[in-house]
């Protein structure tokens, strides 16, 4: 049915043991003209070492400004199947858990209207449906939404929040990442679907400092679970680790960044007041050590990749917050943060960049957060500080 292409270069990428994306495109190409032409166009890119996708284009579904990314081939006559090849972002369930029933339903809908190619998943977390035309967008949305699925965020909007596996399958979850993620996604539906920000805003929720979701590097608001109080120690299990060959002094005590641990060959001791909760010891002795009982999260703000003025990691703004349903304090704080960003951000400026040029004080005062030493690595090195009128009293 579909046009066939010789793909000698891509065929090379079917060889070797690692799963091959070329095989995936070929599987889809058996059923879809779009996927077949995708294969042809990518082969051409491999030959000429350049891409053939035109720049963006505004497409979407009625009432939304987000969720669909327009994509057009710059070679529509040569590859008509990818003349339009839009991306549809479907908001993924918290933690990427699925039933096979739901996945099959998704596949049936996507085979009907799209290329049969997906990304499971995109960098923001969404289920990405890759390759459809403009006319199919409304039908796709109607079918998906009638079965309980919605679009994710794109453009200058709240991006689809994402989270780690959390209490679903991890003993280190200090917060209910799945529930927080779901609650925030629901709360900010309007901001997700109708872009009204200066630029993108990402929220990622990790249950602990291991940060399997890369929240600290990629989210404008990074929510990272932590605890207060003493690490719980099961000394019998410590003994078992030693018995089974772990060199507790070399692997645990000496690698503790704060030097708060000691081991005399019998008992592991922790000076919890000096612990910075980095998770090394807990992660290496899963049976013996567990986080303390008072659970909550640290909120950090501002991380992003290098465009435009260099990469940033998120900064601590709330050292500890209890996070329990309905998460009202967190929701209110996020609204305050968005408000400040809205008032001060220029076009295409992420919140971290705005904090850099307006100053952290301006941000903290507006959103109502007091200065605390946990926010900094060290105090400033220069004497060029601002005094506000109220500081002079």
């Amino acid at each position, binding site marked *: 049915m579909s046009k066939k292409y010789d793909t000698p270069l*891509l065929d*090379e*990428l079917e060889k070797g043991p690692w799963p091959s*994306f070329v095989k*995936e*495109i070929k*599987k*889809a190409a058996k059923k879809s003209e779009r*996927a077949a032409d995708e294969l042809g166009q*990518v082969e051409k*890119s*491999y030959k000429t*070492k350049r*891409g*053939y*996708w035109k*720049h963006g284009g505004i497409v979407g579904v009625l*009432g939304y400004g987000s969720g669909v990314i327009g994509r057009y081939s710059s070679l529509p006559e040569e590859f008509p199947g990818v003349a339009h090849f839009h*991306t549809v972002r479907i908001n*993924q369930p918290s933690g990427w858990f*699925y039933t*096979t029933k*739901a996945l*099959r339903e998704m*596949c049936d809908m996507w085979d009907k209207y799209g290329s049969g190619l*997906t*990304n*499971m*998943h995109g960098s923001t*977390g969404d289920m990405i449906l*890759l390759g459809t035309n403009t006319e199919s967008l*409304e039908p796709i949305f*109607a079918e998906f939404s*009638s079965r*309980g699925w*919605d679009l994710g965020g794109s453009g200058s909007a709240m991006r689809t929040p*994402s989270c780690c596996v959390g*209490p*679903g*399958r*991890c003993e280190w979850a200090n917060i*209910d990442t799945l529930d927080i993620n*779901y609650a925030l996604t629901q709360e900010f539906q309007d901001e997700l679907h109708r872009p009204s920000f200066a630029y993108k805003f990402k929220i990622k929720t990790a249950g602990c400092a291991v*940060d399997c979701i*890369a929240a*600290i*590097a990629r989210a404008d608001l990074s929510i990272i679970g932590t605890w207060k109080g003493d690490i719980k120690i099961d000394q019998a299990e410590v003994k078992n680790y030693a018995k089974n060959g772990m060199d507790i002094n070399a*692997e645990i005590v000496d690698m503790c*960044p704060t030097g708060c641990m000691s081991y005399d060959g019998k008992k592991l001791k922790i000076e919890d007041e000096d612990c910075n*909760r*980095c998770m*090394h010891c807990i992660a290496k002795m*899963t049976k013996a050590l567990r986080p303390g009982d008072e659970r909550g999260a640290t909120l950090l703000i501002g991380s992003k*990749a*290098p*465009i*435009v*003025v*260099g*990469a940033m990691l998120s900064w601590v703004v709330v050292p500890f917050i209890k996070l329990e349903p309905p998460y009202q304090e967190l929701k209110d704080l996020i609204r305050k943060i968005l408000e400040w960003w809205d008032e001060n951000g220029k076009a295409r400026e992420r919140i971290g960049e705005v904090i850099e040029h307006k100053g952290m004080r301006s941000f903290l005062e507006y959103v109502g957060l007091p200065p605390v030493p946990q926010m900094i690595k060290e105090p400033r090195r220069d004497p060029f500080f601002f005094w506000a009128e109220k500081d002079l009293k």
Partner: protein
Amino acid sequence: MSLPQRKTDIGPPHYKQFLPPVIQKNYGQWKYHEVLDPGTMVHVAESGDKIYTVRVASPRLLSTDTIREISDIADKYCEGYLRFTSRNNIEFLVSDKSKVEPLKKELKDKGYTVGGIGPRVSNVVHTQGWIHCHSACTDASGLVKAMMDELYDYFTTKELPNKVRLAVACCVNMCGAVHCSDIAIVAVHRKVPTIDHGRLANVCEIPTTIASCPTHAISPDPAKKSVKINPDRCMYCGNCFTVCPPIDIHDPENDGVAIVVGGKVGSLRSNPKFSKLAIPFFYNEPPRWPKVVAAVKNILETYARHAKQHERVGEWIERIGWEKFFKLTGIEFTFQHIDDFKFARETFRTAATFKW
């Protein structure tokens, strides 16, 4: 046939309906976990219940046929439940221990790659590349495939001092957290963009275009109703192209990739850190980018030989020092390694305590 009634702003399906019964029952009550082998771990609940996870690699780009196939497998062994990880692995969630080995056997028989758990390489986070992105200056899926064919054993069997997170970004926008990965590939341009003045006047807003440049290299060109670029200031980031397509930065002859190393996101032992430049440039060599793959393997294996147990790549380099990193890896040090962007002075050495 009429379409079903569309609904708006309903958000995603509630996650709870997708959790296997054993997870529903023991939600938030997990006690500990153990890695049983490179592709299997078990989580044990306070109640004594267990859930086994079998992890397989995916090429991220999945056809609906493959998703149906993994669904069939999950029906057979996992009561119809599975999940994906933040690094695009597929995880089969098994509540019946007796099904773990048969599942692994069937996966291997069907050609799936089981592994990625513990101190090794997990799946590679990457971007769209030539498959679907307008700003790509290399492919991403192809680089990942070529690299992981070579590093396959580090996913399936071989152990490293700690986990090593690889990533590929097909341009400096870095949709894939390359900026905080252990070893990562990022595609870069090397030439000042060309401007289609005729189109620019019709398509672009000039103040926005000027404002998009982080180094203030763009200024108005009133005679042409366009803009001009000061080549001495341009660092080829491509941000101007993103806001104004007639400014074309693609150059197949001069585009290629850089390798950065030493980043991490977790706080274990040392704080999260950015990746730093190891090798500034390789030409694009599709379909298999042999020089890039060899360079990544060299860095990975140098780390594997020299790092202490539990040290991540960045921690190892910080302990031995960058001068020794270049020596051990045999990577040539060039002017590009010395920063000349913002905050460059933070990276210059301020003591005579270096190593020879």
